[in-house]
């Protein structure tokens, strides 16, 4: 069967599955809509959290980022998993014990302040919209690449599907579709990974193949990769080029940000008991780690495959490079999409791929007769082209499309739900119309979800240049605003309303301003020379978090301590057993 037809069939089948689940799990109460009636099995919740968490970026782009950044990309691997340790130990069990519906609600109750709740809603909306715009874009891109439709058409189909199950099913619908989406995406990710591992090293387990010898060469994959990339003027694969302080701050911002993302936190509100919240964090990290420990292997193998294809002979010899007319089929396929581009700068009919930005290497390159890097490779190709490089059948390629769409849809749905809950539960029910009936609140929630989808869709189609770049920065915003307020709310009885509000405002304003200065206003100054203490905008959330904590601490000291009933509330959330 033709690939396109097959892809359409697989993708449509996956949609039928999601819609079926949504109809089966329709939300009937606000409890269903916000927290799936608190009846989700901890393992199912772990899977749903993993799907919620792993976005199009994790699925499509991460292995490619690792392939080209090598050791530097470790910040994402540690950052996006280490945050779950913080969630499990510091936040999830206590927030579950608190037992309400939303993150701003916790902040509002704990800091006995409507203002605090509204500030939290504003932070949540800034964080979630930055994040969701990238997801909707991802949906559009996956559609357009695999099904050859316009990005706008892809976006509308994606919005339609999310609209259906998020608006109808609420958290309950989202949870069970996410479970299905996790299964689709992990299967789609692992099948090609296992095959390319087997082909390259004879070991089918990617995590082990990563440290194995290349088949028939008696040389370790990573040792060889280090040698080869160095001989082409790139940074050694297993060494980094980022400064230690920047690595440290970015990792911290990603970890803390992960723990502070509202759409991840609320997943732990959906399980029946405190002990289940802890258990669920374990399952979530297990399901996430399956992909996250495979990605570095896929990255290294992908980079190796690419270089061996382009540079089959010795570096610098006249016939060492691949002749363009002899390129493999997958090369031609991906050239059509624009993800691979070749320009024969020195007119020798062969492809040279090397680091022409490395000044020390320029003399070598010139002596080889090379006149610049001739191959541009989009990082996404490392995952997208894998099945073809490994010569796997068409159904595997179709699966990758379904997997990428599943990853993007599941994350988008989770984000849209927390946005709608913040509007209907925190703003409408909490502030403007406290006496609204449950039925009406549910209706408002659905309208808010529909509205959020439209805004997200618009932002995905027409992303402000700034937002497109800052998806990864949503973590810094979460780290500098919500995380400290929640953490102090649990671990300090002394943290008070004024302190928390001041901390959140200072944290998010500082982080936003720093990011906007370097990414929006002066992109030309965005380098280590101009950064404060050598910390990039990606890592500045950590400093924002420290500021938030310090401001909250000092202001809380200087103002009246929280009332006795709030201190009792803090005591009660620390203990699983209900105290009456």
């Amino acid at each position, binding site marked *: 069967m033709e690939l396109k037809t097959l892809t359409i069939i697989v993708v449509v089948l996956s949609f039928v599955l999601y819609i079926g689940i949504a109809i089966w799990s329709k939300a009937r109460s606000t409890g269903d809509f916000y927290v799936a009636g608190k009846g989700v099995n901890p393992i199912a919740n772990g899977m749903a959290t993993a799907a919620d968490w792993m976005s199009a970026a994790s699925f499509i782009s991460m292995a490619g980022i690792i392939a080209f950044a090598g050791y530097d990309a470790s910040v994402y691997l540690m950052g996006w998993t280490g945050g779950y340790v913080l969630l499990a130990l510091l936040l999830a069990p206590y927030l579950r014990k608190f037992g309400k519906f939303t993150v701003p609600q916790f902040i509002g109750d704990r800091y006995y302040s409507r203002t605090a709740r509204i500030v939290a809603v504003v932070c949540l909306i800034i964080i979630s919209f930055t994040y969701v715009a990238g997801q909707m874009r991802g949906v559009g891109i996956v559609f357009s690449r695999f099904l050859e439709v316009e990005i706008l058409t892809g976006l509308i189909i994606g919005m339609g599907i999310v609209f259906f199950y998020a608006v109808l099913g609420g958290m309950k619908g989202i949870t069970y579709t996410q479970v299905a989406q996790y299964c689709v995406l992990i299967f789609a990710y692992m099948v090609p990974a296992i095959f390319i591992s087997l082909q390259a090293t004879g070991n089918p387990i990617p995590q082990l193949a990563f*440290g194995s010898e290349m088949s028939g060469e008696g040389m370790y994959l*990573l040792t060889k990769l280090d040698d080869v990339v160095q001989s082409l003027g790139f940074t050694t694969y*297993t060494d980094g080029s980022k400064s230690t302080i920047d690595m440290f701050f970015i990792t911290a911002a990603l970890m803390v940000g992960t723990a502070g993302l509202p759409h991840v936190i609320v997943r732990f509100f959906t399980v029946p008991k405190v002990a289940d919240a802890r258990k669920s964090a*374990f399952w979530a990290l297990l399901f996430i780690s399956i992909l996250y420990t495979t990605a570095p292997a896929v990255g290294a193998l992908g980079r190796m495959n690419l270089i061996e294809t382009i540079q089959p002979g010795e570096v610098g010899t006249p016939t060492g490079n691949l002749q363009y007319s002899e390129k493999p089929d997958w090369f031609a396929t991906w050239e059509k999409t624009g993800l691979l581009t070749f320009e024969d700068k020195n007119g020798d009919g062969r492809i040279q791929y090397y680091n022409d930005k490395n000044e020390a290497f320029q003399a070598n390159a010139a002596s080889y007769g090379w006149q610049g890097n001739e191959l541009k490779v989009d990082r996404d190709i490392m995952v997208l082209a894998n099945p073809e490089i490994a010569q796997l059948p068409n159904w595997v390629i179709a699966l990758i499309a379904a997997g990428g769409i599943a990853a993007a849809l599941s994350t988008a749905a989770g984000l849209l739900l927390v946005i709608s809950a913040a509007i209907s539960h925190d703003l409408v029910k909490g502030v403007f119309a406290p006496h609204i009936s449950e039925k009406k609140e549910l209706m408002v929630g659905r309208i808010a979800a529909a509205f959020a989808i439209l805004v997200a869709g618009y932002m995905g189609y027409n992303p402000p240049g700034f937002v497109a770049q800052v998806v990864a920065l949503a973590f810094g915003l979460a780290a500098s605003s919500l995380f400290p307020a929640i953490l102090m709310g649990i671990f300090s009885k002394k943290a008070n309303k004024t302190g928390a509000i001041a901390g959140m405002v200072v944290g998010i304003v500082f982080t936003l301003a720093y990011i906007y200065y370097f990414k929006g206003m002066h992109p030309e100054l965005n380098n280590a020379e101009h950064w404060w203490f050598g910390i990039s905008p990606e890592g500045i959330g950590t400093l924002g978090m420290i500021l938030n904590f310090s401001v909250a601490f000092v202001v809380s000291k200087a103002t009246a301590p929280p009332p006795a009933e709030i201190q009792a509330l803090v005591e009660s959330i620390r203990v699983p057993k209900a105290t009456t």
Partner: protein
Amino acid sequence: MSSNSNHDAYWKANLKLMGVLLAIWFFVSYVCGILLVEQLNQIQFAGFKLGFWMAQQGSLYVFLVLIWVYVRGMNKLDKKFDVEE
């Protein structure tokens, strides 16, 4: 207020377990994976440099173990102090 002193003891035991686990969390990622990565890279095992492996694989496995130990430990504490839900 006997339940309060019981709760305080439970909370202290929780903080202690948490402190130990977070210290390990910090050590495997920030110390082994970032601060001492060059020194650890001198050690080779199988096809990996140790520091690089800690940053891209090892710390992830340790994180999983940490949460597992916490889940088990807290379930025990919940029973011991009779604060199960």
